């Protein structure tokens, strides 16, 4: 724990007398949301607001010969029918590439397809009408003349010479390729006692947010300004993109993001239909609303994963792991998604594989290819579940091969807790992790020995239980290294402004955003603690590019660590400013004073000196009574960006206990554990629930969720009945524990926690299933989701 010489009588800066750091403070927005008084974009209604619906391509790949809009235009309630060619006059296309992903390429993407549709579900024509129902009625009257083209659907053959090239200008279907080599992998494999190989397959899945994507765009010609109410994770990024592609300046665009019904990474990208909605507002000079329905969400919300990884590990008989090698292939749809690109997930797989282990030899190849399916991009825990499942799957297979307990092989290879700072096999840098402490803690929480004994007892009765472990690392608090250095106008820094109101309460404006995860609560806790008021006297304002400091928003587990530190610094700055005023009123040295519980006190004795309301009254209404030349500054802004490390890596370990019905192949999850280390825990309840929610999404990936496509590029299960999101009845209890290694890059010491659960859950369940089945002579399962059919096949029963 970093100790800051800030307040001598207390232990650390975080232990101020009325600190909320480390307390499960109920989130301030809870009552509002529970009473149905949230302000989601779906709720926004503006005067003269019209609704848009889109005609979407029924083909995975087709030339658009002609679009006949006459009948649709004369349908009841229709205001406009707009084709891609018409909209392209208002909005320029975009290309999803970044310069630090060397060689990445993509084709220009339009808000509405202009002469070619490249996936089933791509919007080709917009109908704007008085109501969404009327717009949908008229969509049925839009006649699109398609010429079907051969679809490219299989990533495995996308690069074959005989496969059509989706964007002929690009030359081939390769989006991005990365090779990485460290140490001497060939020697390590040659000298290994055992080499274990496996091919891992990860199903495509998607985010399924509670509130679908939604946008209301309002171009005001009188003001020459565009206001966009947008369910997004990154208001300032979107402000830039709306301005850029409508040929406006950023100050002409205001993005307002109030409540958002879940994001999970889905809402941090540029969506053609949302861009089209904004362009339509400009074109029609009136507010236009788009709320994706479930059916179009499944074919347009970004998908993720869909990786095939051939991998091997070299191990010595004493358990020492000496090399990892991976060959990753992923198909990302017809376009690299703007502006973050669809190369990041594969890039992360290369970065993260082998990450928890001391292993100097590593070779990786990642290839990202185009195909005619919905686009893929960054979703919660980008690349982590893949890298973790490959790594942890290989570690378990190696342990099995040399006859070693899965715990023992991890003990021998996990980076020692006193070895930091150090680097992982791919060269990623770690400040301070706690793999061994986490392992010890999870084993104690689950009572590993007792579980193993019980497993053996039940096995004799024909009950097949499995126990699986997965250590993991998580990328959090990214610096400019993530996107900024690649040329994207995505802010890694964030700011907080705190103002004292005229009665002594404070108002915090922050660039990070609330997606339902509790960012508002964290900012309020930190600001209250740093400044010294009860949390009830803190108001937090988020999600408004006119009214908050410039910032990146919420993604890559950054809101608490980066926004939180900015709030901490702003709170301290405002405290100093207020004490200067109080000192001046009281004729006392500001250093002799402090603020506690909303009152200015004597720092030494704790004696109350003056209320904040009184300080505010004097500063705002009787500044004439202050000494000449003294100006009260009751508003303070601070920004923060991590500088010492490209990322604040966190770590943890998860464990799963499950039972396999070997006749039906059904898996029952009995219990799940996660120990994670996100540094300073600001709000234990929020961290635990982030972990649990993340675990549930990971469990969805490993057992249920799968976007199933046929060879024609048609999504077969794009609805809530056939696409199986994880539901409460199937979820086990999830126990969460913590080890705390704060980052020294900030005073707060908080790292992120939002993606830890999703990173490790699939791997440990896969390992648990194999642990249950191995004694039955089953084939090792290395594909996800692990459906009953997959289990039955592994057992040779079908």
């Amino acid at each position, binding site marked *: 724990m970093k100790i800051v010489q800030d307040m001598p009588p207390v232990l650390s800066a975080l232990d101020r007398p009325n600190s909320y750091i480390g307390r499960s403070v109920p989130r301030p927005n809870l009552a509002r949301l529970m009473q149905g008084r949230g302000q989601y974009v779906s709720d926004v209604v503006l005067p003269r607001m019209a609704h848009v619906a889109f005609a979407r391509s029924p083909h995975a790949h087709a030339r658009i010969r002609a679009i006949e809009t006459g009948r649709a235009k004369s349908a009841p309630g229709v205001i406009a029918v707009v084709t891609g060619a018409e909209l392209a006059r208002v909005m320029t296309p975009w290309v999803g590439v970044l310069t630090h992903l060397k060689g990445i390429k993509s084709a220009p993407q339009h808000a509405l397809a202009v002469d070619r549709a490249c996936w089933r579900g791509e919007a080709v024509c917009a109908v704007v009408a008085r109501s969404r*129902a009327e717009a*949908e009625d008229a969509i049925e009257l839009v006649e699109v003349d398609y010429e079907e083209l051969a679809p490219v659907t299989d990533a495995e053959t996308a690069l074959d010479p005989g496969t059509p090239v989706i964007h002929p200008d690009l030359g081939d279907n390769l989006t991005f390729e990365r090779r990485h080599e460290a140490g001497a992998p060939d020697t390590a494999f040659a000298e290994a006692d055992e080499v274990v190989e496996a091919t891992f397959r990860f199903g495509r899945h998607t985010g399924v947010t509670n509130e679908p994507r939604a946008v209301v765009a309002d171009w005001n010609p009188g003001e020459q300004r565009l206001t966009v109410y947008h369910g997004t994770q990154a208001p300032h990024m979107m402000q830039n993109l709306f301005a850029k592609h409508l040929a406006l300046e950023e100050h002409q665009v205001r993005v307002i993001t109030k409540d958002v019904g879940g994001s999970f990474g889905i809402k941090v990208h540029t969506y053609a239909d949302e861009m089209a909605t904004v362009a339509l507002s400009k074109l029609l000079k009136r507010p236009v609303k788009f709320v994706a329905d479930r059916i179009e969400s499944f074919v347009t919300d970004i998908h993720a994963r869909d990786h095939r990884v051939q991998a091997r590990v070299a191990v010595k008989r004493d358990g020492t792991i000496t090399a990892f090698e991976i060959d990753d292939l992923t198909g990302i749809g017809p376009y690299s998604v703007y502006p973050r690109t669809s190369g990041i997930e594969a890039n992360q797989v290369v970065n993260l594989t082998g990450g928890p282990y001391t292993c100097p030899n590593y070779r990786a190849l990642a290839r990202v290819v185009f195909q005619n399916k919905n686009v893929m991009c960054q979703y919660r825990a980008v690349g982590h579940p893949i890298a973790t499942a490959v790594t942890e799957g290989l570690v378990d297979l190696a342990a099995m091969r040399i006859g070693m307990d899965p715990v023992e092989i991890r003990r021998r290879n996990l980076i020692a807790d006193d070895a930091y700072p150090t680097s992982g096999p791919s060269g990623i840098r770690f400040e301070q992790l706690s793999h061994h402490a986490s392992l010890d803690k999870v084993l104690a929480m689950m009572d590993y020995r007792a579980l193993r004994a019980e497993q053996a007892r039940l096995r004799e009765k024909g009950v097949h239980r499995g126990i699986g472990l997965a250590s993991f690392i998580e990328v959090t608090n990214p610096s400019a290294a993530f996107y900024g250095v690649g040329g994207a106008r995505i802010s890694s820094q964030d700011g907080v402004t705190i103002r004292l109101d005229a009665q002594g309460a404070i108002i915090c404006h922050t660039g990070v955003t609330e997606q339902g995860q509790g960012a508002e609560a964290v900012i309020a806790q930190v600001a209250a603690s740093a400044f010294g008021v009860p949390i009830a006297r803190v108001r937090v304002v988020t999600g408004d590019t006119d009214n908050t400091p410039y910032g990146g928003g919420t993604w890559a587990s950054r809101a608490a660590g980066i926004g939180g530190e900015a709030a901490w610094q702003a709170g301290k700055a405002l405290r100093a400013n207020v004490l200067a005023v109080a000192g001046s009123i009281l004729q006392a040295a500001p250093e002799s004073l402090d603020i506690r519980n909303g009152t200015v006190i004597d720092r030494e004795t704790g004696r109350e000196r003056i209320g904040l309301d009184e300080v505010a009254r004097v500063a705002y209404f009787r500044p004439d009574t202050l000494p000449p030349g003294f100006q009260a500054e009751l508003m303070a802004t601070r920004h923060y960006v991590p500088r010492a490390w490209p990322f604040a890596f966190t770590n943890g370990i998860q464990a799963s206990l499950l039972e396999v019905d070997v006749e039906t192949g059904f898996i029952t999850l009995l219990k799940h554990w996660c120990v994670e280390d996100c540094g300073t825990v600001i709000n234990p309840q929020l961290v635990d629930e982030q972990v649990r929610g993340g675990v549930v999404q990971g469990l969805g990936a490993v057992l249920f969720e799968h976007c199933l496509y046929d060879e024609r590029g048609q999504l077969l299960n794009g609805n809530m009945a056939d696409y*199986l999101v994880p539901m409460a*009845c199937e979820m086990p209890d999830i126990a969460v524990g913590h080890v705390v290694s704060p980052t020294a890059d900030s005073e707060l010491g908080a790292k992120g926690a939002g993606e830890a659960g999703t990173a490790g859950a699939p791997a440990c369940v896969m390992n648990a299933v194999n642990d249950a089945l191995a004694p039955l002579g089953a084939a090792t399962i290395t594909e996800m989701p692990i459906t*009953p059919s997959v289990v*039955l096949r592994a057992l040779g*029963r079908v």
Partner: protein
Amino acid sequence: MKPPAFAYAKARALDHAIELLGVDGARLLAGGQSLIATLNMRLSSPSLLVDINGIGGLEGIALRDGRLEIGALVRHVQAERSAEIARHAPLIARAMPHIGHAAIRNRGTLGGSIAFADPAAELPACLVALGGEVEIAGPEGRRTVAADDFFKDLFETALGPRDVLTAIRVPAATADTRVGFAELARRHGDYAMVGLAAAARADGKAPKDPRLVYFGVGTTPVRARKAEAALAGGSLDQAVAALAQDLAPQDDVQATAAVKTHLAGVLLRRVAQQLEAA
């Protein structure tokens, strides 16, 4: 998705409903749990919805002449909690908790389930397994159709466009009635991947007159007649083997035909145990 425009009429009585069904493209609305979803997804576009929820006399559960009669508007939740059904139709009582989730069971009706005839639904299979019958009112008056003859093809039943299903009837359970029920769904409340509803009479060792009705494996509830014969003959293994001839499931997004046939065999072994238990 928003439904295409439709007209709505609330039927005052059975006759009124039948009269309203004379309108071209009219459809009955009961609990709406299946119908409204198809409207919202624009899979169907009726011109008129005839709401039968206000018609009296269709929500009773009563024992008459050794048969239990269940009105078409009995909600799933009502059936789930009914002492009469638990006592006289224990197979239906066992099936109820598997139907959707509480919110769906609050609105969905037994009549709607039978009339909609989803091949993966529980109740049609139970009705066939129990050798029940369906009571229908139409423009030509009332008639009764045996469950075995009611389910024709995928979402196709003996109901004509102007018919209203008013009740179902099943023989009340007696002391020697044995029932068994099992289904496999990947998540609680989902339609079954494969399910089996079974009824028989206790008779010493092997169950007598077993009726084995699968759901989720065809276009209608499917009776496994060869397996029934083998089971009656006392051989569970032969019954399981016979399923390969009785059932011809199609591949779907959940499982291949081979997996479904395998699972049908597993269910048969489990249900056979239930049939043996007193």
